[in-house]
């Protein structure tokens, strides 16, 4: 059983294990970053640290949608990235034993697998994969 933060994008439900989450913050002042493009939308000041802000919906292929006013700060293990998400729901216990491989069309989109929760299909995000993709894209 793993505690997972779930949020929705359109009809899809995504899950993010809270082990990777440092803190959920509310409406930080977004600073403009030169040459920022694509999923990198800017930077914020978090307790004196400057953290890069990544737009997760864009990364997941849902650009131009609603965003939650809250953002998720990942643990230093995951480069302390700040993820802009949509519609944060709540923290649930997800039975990872029921995790099934992601469907074909979501391959390579940072989905670790799909778990079932109260007749919902929760797509569990693969944080490592996300970091990898970002490092591939921005070389850092």
């Amino acid at each position, binding site marked *: 059983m793993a*505690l997972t933060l779930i949020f929705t994008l359109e009809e899809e439900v995504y899950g993010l294990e*809270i082990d990777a989450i*440092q*803190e*959920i913050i*509310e409406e930080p002042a977004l600073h403009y970053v030169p040459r920022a493009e694509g999923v990198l939308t800017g930077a914020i000041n978090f307790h004196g640290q400057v953290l890069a802000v990544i737009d997760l919906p864009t990364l997941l292929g849902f650009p131009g949608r609603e965003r939650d006013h809250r953002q998720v700060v990942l643990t230093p293990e995951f480069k302390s990235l700040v993820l802009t998400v949509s519609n944060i729901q709540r*923290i649930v216990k997800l039975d990872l034993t029921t995790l099934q491989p992601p469907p074909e069309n979501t391959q390579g989109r940072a989905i670790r697998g799909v778990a079932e929760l109260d007749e919902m299909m929760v797509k569990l995000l693969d944080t490592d994969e996300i970091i990898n993709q970002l490092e591939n894209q921005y070389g850092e």
Partner: protein
Amino acid sequence: MRIEISYKFIIGFLIVVVSGVVVNLVVPHLQIPPEFQQFFSVTCALVVGLIFGSIFSRAFTANIRRLTSAGDQISQGDLSEDIQLKESRFPDETSDLANAMNHIQKSLRNLVGDIRGISFKVAGSAQNLSGTSQEVSASAQEVARTVDQISKGAETQAEMVEESNRLFKEVAISINLVAKAAKNVAESAHQTVETAKSGSEMASVSLGSIRQVLAEAESSSQQMYNFIGQLQRISKFVEVINGVAQKTNLLALNATIEAARAGEYGRGFAVVAEEIRKLADSSTISANEITDLVEGIRAEGQQVQSSMGQVIEEMESSREAVDRTNQAFSAITQKAVGTQTKANSIAELSVQQISSAEQITRAIDEIDKVVSDNAAATEQVSAATQEQSAAMEELAQSALHLSNLSETMLQIVKQFKLAEEDQD
């Protein structure tokens, strides 16, 4: 030497006597036989007596004859010649008679001349008179014609006066009708004024009611506005509650994350965090429900407000309509008052006109009388003219008669023969 006839006779007688005596004395001395002496003396005395007698008588009768013939001439009207007796050395009473007859003849001549002259003058005057009388007669006829025309004119005048009278009576009737109509109009105008006033009062009452309703509606609208303002304040509170709930939710999420990181020690804390999250969620739900409710109330309130606005607008237009109605009533009242005043003045004027018309009728009656009098006077004039004409006729006839008389007189006077230079 004047010797009277008696003396002449005496002288003649004496001469005869003397001659007898002389013859008696002479005869003895003559050679005449004495037997013839007596005879001779008587014969001589007879001869002398005859001669002297004849001479005397002849001289005497000649003058008498002349005088007689002169008397005859005078009696025949011949006054042309004076009586001339034979020149005598011894004029006597015959020459006195001749002188007297000459005087008479002269007087007669003068008298006849005067009579003739006067007759001429009388004839001329009579002719003049006749002419004048004819002129006067002609003038009188002219006057009669004129009078006739005047009479006809007077008749026409009388007819016209009658017509005028009739027309004026009709005018008076018309004026009466006008006066009645004006009175009716004034009455109608008065009723209109009353009606308009009551209408105006009703409109004022309606206006008052509308204003009251309008004021109430406006105050209701204001209340609704205030109510909506209150709702907005509730919404703000709800937002605050929502914000608090979201913050609580966030705190709960972070607390859960922290509790998970604390592992076994954080388990109780995680439960508390979960409970807090649930409370925050139900707060959010309640706040959202409140928001929905408030939103619904606000929408309904706004609808009510807009309905109220429409009502107010309608009320406003009603008020304007009633206002206009009121104004219209005022205008009607004004107009009707004006109409009433005018109709009243028309009625008054009509009354004045009626009295004027009556005066005119009276004046026309007077004129009628005058015209009648004129006609009568004209008839009198006509009669007088006729009388005058008749008188003139008589006068003319008299003049003619006079002329005839003077002519006759002239004829008579012409029988007298005057001196050659006096004859015409």
